[in-house]
C-alpha cells in the first residue's frame, strides 16, 4: 500500500495521522496496559520498581493496579499508564503480498484456462519443528475455518510432507516432483532458529539452480511478508492466512513465470 492510500483511510474524527497514540476512552489519552514479572520478592520497593519501569517505557502516570508474590523471589504486576510516544502513521509503508484474492472456483478456472495444467506444490514443516497446524491449515483437504485446503483444489497437485522435514529431503522432493511452488511452515522455534532454517533452504534452492522457476513461500505466526522477502522468499504469510489467499498468490505467480 502506498502513502496516499494510508492517507485515504477513514480515520476517526480529530485523529492526527502524524501523531497516532493509543486510545482508552478519549482521543490521545495514550492509555495502555502492561504486565510483567520482576525477579524480586514482593515488597513496597518492588511495586515502586514496577512503577518506575512503567515510567521508563514512556508511560505518564504509571499505576500499578495489581501485584502478586509468585514466591521463590518473583513478583507479578499489572500496570496502566498513558503512553507519551506517538507514531507518524502517514509515513508507514509495509510490504504486502500482491495477490488478487479470489475464490476457490475462480482460482481453479484461471489455472485451468491460462496454465492448462495443475500446479505442483510441495509443502512441509521443516527442521526440528513438529507443529504442522499451519501447513495443515493451508494444505489439508479439510482446510481451515470453513475453507478447503490446497489438496482439495482440482487444479493443484499438493503434497504435504508433514513435520520435521530436513531441508535436504524437501529439496530432493522439489526436484523429484518438479514442483512449481514450495510452502514452508515454521511455527514453534526458539532463538530464531527458524530464520536460519528458512535462509538455508533458499540458499540450497539457489545452489540447485532452480530458484527462478520456483515460487518460494513461507508461513507461520512469526513470519511477515517483509521478513520473507529479506530471507529471499517470494512471499510470507502470517497467522490467520486462509488457503485461498495462498492459492491466489501461487496461481498468479506460477502463471506470471510461465507466461
Amino acid at each position, binding site marked *: 500500500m502506498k502513502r496516499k492510500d494510508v492517507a485515504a483511510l477513514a480515520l476517526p474524527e480529530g485523529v492526527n495521522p502524524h501523531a497516532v497514540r493509543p486510545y482508552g476512552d478519549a482521543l490521545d489519552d495514550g492509555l495502555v496496559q502492561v504486565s510483567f514479572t520482576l525477579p524480586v520478592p514482593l515488597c513496597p520497593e518492588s511495586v515502586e520498581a514496577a512503577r518506575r519501569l512503567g515510567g521508563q517505557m514512556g508511560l505518564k502516570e504509571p499505576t500499578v493496579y495489581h501485584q*502478586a508474590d*509468585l*514466591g521463590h523471589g518473583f513478583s507479578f504486576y499489572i500496570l496502566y499508564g498513558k503512553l507519551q510516544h506517538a507514531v507518524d502513521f502517514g509515513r508507514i509503508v509495509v510490504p504486502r503480498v500482491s495477490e488478487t484474492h479470489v475464490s476457490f472456483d475462480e482460482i481453479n478456472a484461471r489455472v485451468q484456462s491460462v496454465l492448462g495444467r495443475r500446479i505442483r506444490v510441495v509443502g512441509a514443516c521443516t527442521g526440528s519443528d513438529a507443529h504442522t497446524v499451519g501447513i495443515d491449515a493451508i494444505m489439508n483437504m*479439510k482446510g481451515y475455518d470453513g475453507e478447503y485446503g490446497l489438496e482439495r483444489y482440482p487444479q493443484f497437485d499438493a503434497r504435504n510432507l508433514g513435520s520435521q522435514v530436513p531441508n535436504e529431503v524437501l529439496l530432493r522432493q522439489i526436484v523429484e516432483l518438479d514442483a512449481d511452488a514450495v510452502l514452508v511452515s515454521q511455527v514453534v522455534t*526458539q532463538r530464531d532458529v527458524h530464520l536460519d532454517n528458512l535462509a538455508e533452504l533458499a540458499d540450497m534452492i539457489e545452489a540447485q539452480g532452480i530458484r527462478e522457476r520456483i515460487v518460494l513461500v513461507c508461513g507461520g505466526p512469526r513470519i511477515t511478508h517483509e521478513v520473507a522477502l529479506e530471507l529471499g522468499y517470494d512471499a510470507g504469510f502470517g497467522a490467520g492466512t486462509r488457503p485461498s489467499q495462498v492459492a491466489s498468490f501461487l496461481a498468479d505467480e506460477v502463471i506470471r513465470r510461465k507466461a
Partner: protein
Amino acid sequence: MTSKLDLDPGRIACCRESADAVARAVLAFASERTTVSIERATLRLIGVEGGDDAGVPWVNRVVDGARSLLPGGIALPFARAMRVGGLDPTQTARAVAEGGLELGGEGVADSETQALAHALAERAMARISGTVADREARLEALGEGPRPLLYVIVASGNIFEDVVQAKVCVRAGAQVVAVIRSTAQSLLDYIPEGTTTEGYGGTYATQGNFRVMRAALDEASEEAGRYVRLCNYASGLCMPEMAALGAVERLDVMLNDALYGILFRDINMQRTLTDQAFSRLVSAAGGILINTGEDNYLTTADAVDAAHTVLASQFINEAIALRCGLQPWQLGLGHAMQMNPLNEDTFLLEVAQAQMAREIFPDCPLKYMPPTKHMTGDIFRGHVQDAMFSLASVMTGQGIHLLGMMTEAMHTPHIHDRVLALDATRMVMGSARHLADEISFVPGGRIRTRAQEVLAEACDLLETVRRDGIFAALGQGRFADVVRTAEGGRGLDGVFVKSPDYRNPVEDLLRGRVAWRGAAEGA
C-alpha cells in the same frame, strides 16, 4: 456411578472386544520382535550409565556394535562379558565399546552366565520396586490434593531454569509438572547424557535432568505439603529406555501412546508398536501413570467429525495397556477440547464427550487437554476458553487436567502465564467442585445424543480396524487423517525378529511382576 448419558453397555462391551482383538494382534506382532531401544533399555535397567566423551551413551555404543547378536538379545552376551572382564555394568559397557572386551563367543548360554544375567535382572527389579515404595511412602505422608490433578508444563530449554519455574508453579498449586522435551528429541535414536542448559522448544530428557527435576520437586513437595508428580515422555525412538529411566528415577507420569509416534512423528509402526509393549511393561512395574495421546488427533482432524477416532483409540490404548499389565488407575487416557469455540453449542459437545470418556473408563484418571488449535494470540479470549475448559473438566470428573495457557500458540509460557492459569483454574474448579453431583442431562437432549452418536461411530470404526488390522487402518488414514505404511517412517532398521534362543531375563521378570497377558487368548 450411574450413567448420565444412557450409554448402551452392550455397545461399550462390543468396543472393548474389538479393541482387545486389535491389541492381541499388536502384541503378537511385538512379542516376536525386539528393537535396539529395547536392548538398550535392558542394559540401562541392569545398571549401565553414562557415555563417551562425545556424549554417545555406552548403551548405544554397545548395541550398535552388536547388531548381529540382537536377535538373541543383548543380555546374555553382556553378562558373559561382565563375567569375563570381572567389571561392573558401566565399566563393562565401556570396555566393550572401546574394544577391550568382546561380546558373543563361547559361554553365552552357560549356567554361570545365565545365573549372572538373572541376578542382574533381579537387581533391576529391586531398584524399580524401591522406587515404587519410595513414591508410595511419600504419597502416604503428603497426599497429593484433589482431582483433577493440575498439570503444567515447563519448557525453558535449561533444566535449572525449569526448576525455578516448576517451584513457582508448585507454590501456585500445580500437582503435576511436565518437562517438555526439546523439539525433535523423539527422533533421536539415543538419549543425550548429563544435565543440559540448551534446548529448542523444550529441555532434553536425560537421566541427569530427570534427577535434577525430581530432587527439586521433592523439595517443593515438602514445602507445599503435597506430593508433586513429575512427568516426561516415554515416546519416540527411545520409548523403552525413557520408560526404564522413568522407572528408576521416579517419574510418576509418562506420555506413552500406541499410535502417536506413528501418526505425528512418522516413526515406523513396527518399531513403535514393538517398543510400546516393552515400555508399558516397564511402566506397569514402575507404578508409572501413562498418558495417551489421543488429544493430539483433534489438532489435525476436525474435532467434531473425528471425536469417535479419539474414543476408538482410547479403547485400543486401554486394551494394549491392560494386556501389558498396567492397572486402570495407571491409564491417563487422553482427550481434548479442540472444537471451534465460535460455533454454537460446542461447549455442550465438549461436555458430552468428556462425560462419555468418564463413564466408559470409570477407573482411569483420564487426561484432559486444553484448547490449543483455536488459540489465537488473543490472550483475553484464550483465558476465557481455558476457564470454560476448566469448568468442563470439573463438571465431568476428569483425573488429570493439563492447564491451558492464554499464550498458547505464541511462545513457551512465561512464569506468570502459568500462575495466572493456575489461579484461574483453581478458582473455577473450587467454585464448581461438586457441580458434577448436582447435574443430569436431559433424555433425548443434545448432550446425550452426541455421546451416543460418538460411541456408535467408534464401535463401527473399531470393527473395521479389527477386521483390517491396525497396520491397514493406519495405511488408510483412519486416525487423525494421517496415512502411514508398515515399511515407512523412521527407525525400522532398529527392529529385529527374535531368534528362537532370544533371552531377556529383565523382560521375563517384568512380566512375572505384573499382570502381563501379552497376546494370550481371552480377556
